[in-house]
């Protein structure tokens, strides 16, 4: 009885906040079907023209593709470097460890515009052309600390003697990393990759300064936002991105359900 009451109260609160979080998304989706250039009430009528226009916006699809490429490449590099640093930091004590931790947490707080200007100057010095490559490199700088913290927290959470057990059974240190440490840290690595990808996919300031003739999605969106008549197109795209993310989550949940259902049966 009591638990039931708590549940319903807590769930009501959850629903309220979820509504709060989804309300703007809902409004965007509604406006993506509105037959007007301006996003104002009252709604003018139903249309699919923004979506059909979207199909012809090749630059936009190019931008999506660029963002996905940059997101994947930079997240991959971030996860590799961040995990390396996390392994050292979680397992060893060495001079400069604290300093490195403090320094590497700074990208979390530096205004990105400062970093972008500084990187523009640096890249000009060392001859890296402004390009998607430069954007990707910049994204690793802001993502490595996140990856490091996420992975280090995971490493701190499991017993060190699992690694000792592997070495005891004949695995070298590096073999142990590959066979035991990294597989156990896999959820953290995946989470770090996803968080890096999300950051990169929505990152705007660094991308704007550092890209050359190829745009990432946020850069493209922003440049389109300047034109009143392109705004609904952008809104329609946002609605699609939202929909894809939700489907992604639902699908992965579904996979998870299947996974948890079959595991015990297979085990018996």
């Amino acid at each position, binding site marked *: 009885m009591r638990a039931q009451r708590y549940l319903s109260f807590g769930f009501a609160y959850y629903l309220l906040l979820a509504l709060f979080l989804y309300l703007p998304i809902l409004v965007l989706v509604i406006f993506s079907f509105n037959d007007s250039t301006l996003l104002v009430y009252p709604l003018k009528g139903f249309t699919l023209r923004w979506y059909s226009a979207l199909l012809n916006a090749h630059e936009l699809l190019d931008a999506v593709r660029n963002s996905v490429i940059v997101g994947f490449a930079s997240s991959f590099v971030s996860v590799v470097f961040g995990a390396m640093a996390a392994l050292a930091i979680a397992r060893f004590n060495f001079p400069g460890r604290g300093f490195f931790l403090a320094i590497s947490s700074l990208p979390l707080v530096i205004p990105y515009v400062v970093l972008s200007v500084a990187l523009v100057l640096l890249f000009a010095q060392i001859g890296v052309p402004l390009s998607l490559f430069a954007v990707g490199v910049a994204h690793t700088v802001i993502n490595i600390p996140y990856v490091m913290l996420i992975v280090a927290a995971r490493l701190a959470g499991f017993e060190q003697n699992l690694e000792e*057990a592997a*070495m*005891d*059974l004949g695995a*070298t240190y590096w073999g142990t990393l590959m066979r035991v440490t990294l*597989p156990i840290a896999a959820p953290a690595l995946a989470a770090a990759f996803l968080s890096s990808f999300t950051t990169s996919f929505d990152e705007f300031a660094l991308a704007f300064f550092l890209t050359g003739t190829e745009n990432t999605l946020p850069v493209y969106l922003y440049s389109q936002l300047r034109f009143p008549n392109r705004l609904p197109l952008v809104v329609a795209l946002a609605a699609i991105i939202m929909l894809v993310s939700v489907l992604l989550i639902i699908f992965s949940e579904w996979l998870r359900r299947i996974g948890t259902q079959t595991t015990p049966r297979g*085990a018996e």
Partner: protein
Amino acid sequence: MSELAVELSNVFKTFSASNARDVNAVRNVNLAIRAGEFFTLLGPSGCGKTTTLRLIAGFEQPTRGEVRIQGKPMNGVPPYRRPVNTVFQNYALFPHLSVQENVGFGLAIKRVSKEEKKKRVQAALDLVELPQAADRKPSQLSGGQQQRVALARALVNQPAVLLLDEPLGALDLKLRKNMQLELKHMQELLKLTFIYVTHDQEEALTMSDRIAVMSAGNVLQIGAPIEIYEKPATRFVADFIGETNFLNGRVVEMGTAMTGVEVTGKRINLPRQNEFPTNSVNVTLTVRPEKVGISRPESFADEAKRISFSGVIREAVYIGTDTRYLVGLSNAETLVARLQSSPGHRPGEYAIDDPVIVWFEPGDIRLLTE
């Protein structure tokens, strides 16, 4: 003498603590463990027994001294190149691998062929009586089952020495007793060297061929269980292994075959003990409670052969097979006596405040300097 499986000579291990104070975990340890032996490192927590084991496994390097396995020096050799395997205290099973993957881990590293691996893994699982569990994850097993998997994972590699770090600590009493016997049986069957770390003296006495008792980083005594129990070398060993009585005394005479000691104002003669060379010093006498007899003053005889003191029953606790009496002596010292229930001694025979005579054979007393 058979060949040595593991030798530690003058091994020291010092950890530098953060507050600049060093911790000497192991001090000048010398061990010579024979091949095929069940050797136990016994001591309270923090005595250095686990560190000693880790020095053998290779997880730690000695600060000073040398570790040899099968005669080969092991200093600087990483754990993965040592012919030893460990059963960890909390098993350390890889949560992301199935039981057979866990057991086959070491073989996979050694690139053993698939069929061979499968065969050996199955054999190891059969040995630990878990043939059905191959495809499960460790989290789906009970504590006892996990323990068996950990054992199989170590044994499948056919190590020269198996190191066991309190492997039964997490099991319930009954399971533990079974596993003790099984482990001992397995060790005899495989003719393997086991080095076993435990803080449970009963476990050590049950299973071991020899025991090394450790305290504060030092090895205090090495010997067979009976030696350790019957002839403890130090007060610590006597106290740690089983229950015992201590009495303060002073050596007053050293004869060729006997030692004269003054205890609670009474002169007694004990057989001369080699371990105790010096004359005229303070000593501790120790005697096991089960070696102590109690009689009523009126029925006590054999004054000459036995050592006896008069006292008063302070406490009588019935514990099933035995009754445990606490007897107060004239000088405020106390002695514990355990009398087995038998036709000669019925529980409740002596009541509190009954005046009694406590007595023991001179040969059951050990003289200790500390």
